[in-house]
């Protein structure tokens, strides 16, 4: 009988379930069973919310500032603009008529209850690995949010991509259906991390190179790639020298993912979104498991033709000395004369893999647009980097990025004013 007042006080759901379950075992009455069922449902919803955060559903299914999961956020792709649908429990415009089976089928096979094939902007190639129990919990949570009556917009895709029949071919090439299968030779923690990274986390969507068909190939998993339309480069997560995590301390990976800043680097752009909406809410155990798994990814060969190896160094002397002058005047106050940064809020530039990686997109964008790391539970008031687009011209930015990419043991390729100019006009959603 203790359970009722406790219920009103809203004790943490898990504790409540334990208490109620205990009471029910001792006093198996109908009333108790009802409380138990309600509490159990509540804890499933809470768990589902956590998993929905791990899957970052909000990123696509909610327009910033609008009601949660009411859909219609535009997602520009090379094939046209997709609009993520309303997934609130509204019966006519949302998923109010769906069953848990429908939801699991959609997650697992990429087919809607009406039988049509989903575009792979919905990461079902990753979500297929999610267990039935986790899928059911997410569905229970989605059923618990306020229903919003809002018609989902039709996708605006160019010919021939507006023909869903083409997806049959895409699925043959890039989609392998099946829940995550644990690797018994690895630890429980490693398997938990792999499940989250490969499944709900859908990290491969950005960190695996995307080809002309919008597919990410298995054999190049996590080798990094340019994110279409967003003009950011998602670094390799394997242990190669680009941005691999092989020589990172576990805690630095944890901090980067969960806090948004670390002693090795900071998340900006699309990854800031992932930390803000998803990773900051994940438990220490889960984040650590993801870090353990990521750190274990084997090294790959790296890009076939690495511009860093190109014999262009003799030509860059002028840009280098101009860049050094600009760096001393504009950057050194925060990042230090030797590029060591001030940890963790002013990231190091020396031996920072994301500075020297084969694509110079990210460092150029940082100098042009500046950026704030996401405000997170562990770092609620982040320090920001000012934009320099209004102060420095294309040549000056090319010079300073060239300097940063080649100083202090960094081995990036020089940058041209033309590359800077292309990114200057890059739009951000």
């Amino acid at each position, binding site marked *: 009988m203790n359970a009722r007042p406790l219920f009103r006080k809203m004790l943490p759901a898990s504790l409540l379930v334990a208490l109620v379950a205990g009471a029910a075992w001792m006093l198996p009455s109908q009333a108790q069973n009802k409380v138990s069922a309600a509490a159990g449902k509540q804890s499933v919803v809470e768990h589902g919310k956590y998993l929905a955060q791990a899957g970052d559903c909000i990123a696509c299914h909610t327009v*910033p500032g609008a009601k949660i999961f009411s859909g219609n956020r535009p997602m520009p792709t090379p094939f046209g603009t997709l609009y993520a649908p309303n997934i609130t429990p509204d019966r006519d415009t949302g998923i109010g008529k769906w069953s848990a089976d429908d939801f699991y089928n959609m997650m697992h096979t990429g087919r809607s209850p009406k039988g049509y094939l989903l575009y792979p902007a919905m990461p079902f190639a990753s979500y297929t690995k999610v267990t039935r129990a986790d899928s059911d919990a997410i569905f229970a949570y989605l059923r618990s949010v306020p229903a919003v009556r809002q018609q989902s917009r039709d996708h605006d895709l160019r010919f021939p991509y507006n023909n869903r029949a083409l997806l049959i071919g895409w699925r043959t090439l890039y989609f392998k259906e099946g829940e995550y299968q644990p690797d018994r030779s690895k630890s429980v923690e490693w398997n938990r991390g792999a499940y989250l990274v490969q499944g709900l986390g859908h990290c491969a969507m950005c960190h695996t190179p995307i080809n002309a068909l919008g597919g990410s190939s298995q054999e190049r998993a996590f080798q990094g790639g340019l994110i279409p339309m967003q003009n950011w480069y998602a670094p390799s997560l394997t242990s190669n020298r680009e941005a691999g995590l092989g020589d990172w301390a576990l805690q630095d990976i944890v901090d980067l993912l969960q806090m948004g800043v670390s002693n090795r680097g900071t998340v900006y752009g699309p990854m800031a979104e992932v930390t803000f909406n998803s990773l900051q809410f994940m438990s220490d155990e889960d984040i650590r498991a993801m870090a353990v798994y990521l750190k274990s990814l084997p090294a790959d060969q790296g890009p076939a033709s690495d511009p860093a190896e190109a014999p262009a160094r003799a030509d860059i002397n002028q840009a280098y000395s101009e860049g050094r002058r600009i760096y001393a005047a504009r950057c050194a106050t925060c990042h*230090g004369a030797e590029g060591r940064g001030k940890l963790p*809020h002013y990231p190091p530039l020396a031996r920072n893999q994301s500075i020297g990686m084969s694509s110079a997109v990210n460092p150029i964008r940082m100098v042009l*647009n500046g950026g704030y790391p996401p*405000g997170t539970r562990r770092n609620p*008031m982040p*320090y920001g980097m000012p*934009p320099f687009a209004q102060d420095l011209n294309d040549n000056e930015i090319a010079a300073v990025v060239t300097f940063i990419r080649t100083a202090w043991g960094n081995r990036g390729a020089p940058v041209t004013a033309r590359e800077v100019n292309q990114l200057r006009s890059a739009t*951000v959603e």
Partner: protein
Amino acid sequence: MKILNASIAIALAGYAGAAVGQATAADRIPDTMEARVQACIGCHGPQGRGVENVYFPRLAGKPAGYLYNQLVAFRDGRRKYVPMNYLLAYLPDAYLMRMAEHFASLNPPPLAQPRVDRPAQLLRDGQRIVTEGVPGKKIPACIACHGAELGGREPGIPGLLGLRADYVSAQLGAWRFGVRTALEPDCMQFIASSLSEPEVAAVSAHLASLPVTTSRPVRQPGVRLPLACGSQPSTTMPKQEARR
């Protein structure tokens, strides 16, 4: 409980140890709002006092509620300017409020206003709209809401001094075409779309011609304004304001 306390103590000790081990004086990042908003001053000037560039307005001394509403509007895309939308995209409400309060509390000397070389008749037309409004179109005088001295009004209405003519007319244009929006009811949307092009030019020129004074936002809780504005809650919810 004991276990909990012990683990907190260990965590704190670990944290302190790490801090001592790492940070030398030169490496230390000041734990201040001033250091946190360095990203803003490149465009808005030291202490948010404004810069030569017409389109980067002064932030210092504007009412915190106004600044906060703008930060949220930029973050959520209700006010569109790509560099600001991008910078603020992943910052939480509480932090944006701290930023707003920070700039609201500053009052550095304003930049000298460049001389406005516009026809006298235009400036006179502008002055009339600013002080009397356009009664035929039900447009109230600017001073009715923005303060008799145009220093703004707490908590949500900005001062209008020290803004260049091109900036003011660009903002009115943005309101008219939906690129800039405020909380509903969006009173400025009504005003901006009711003003004619020559009226916008006159108001912008007159405001820019005024000397920048040290006037601060007025604080007059409970005063009823001529239009209901979502960004000035007292105009839409007079009872709630009175209760406070």
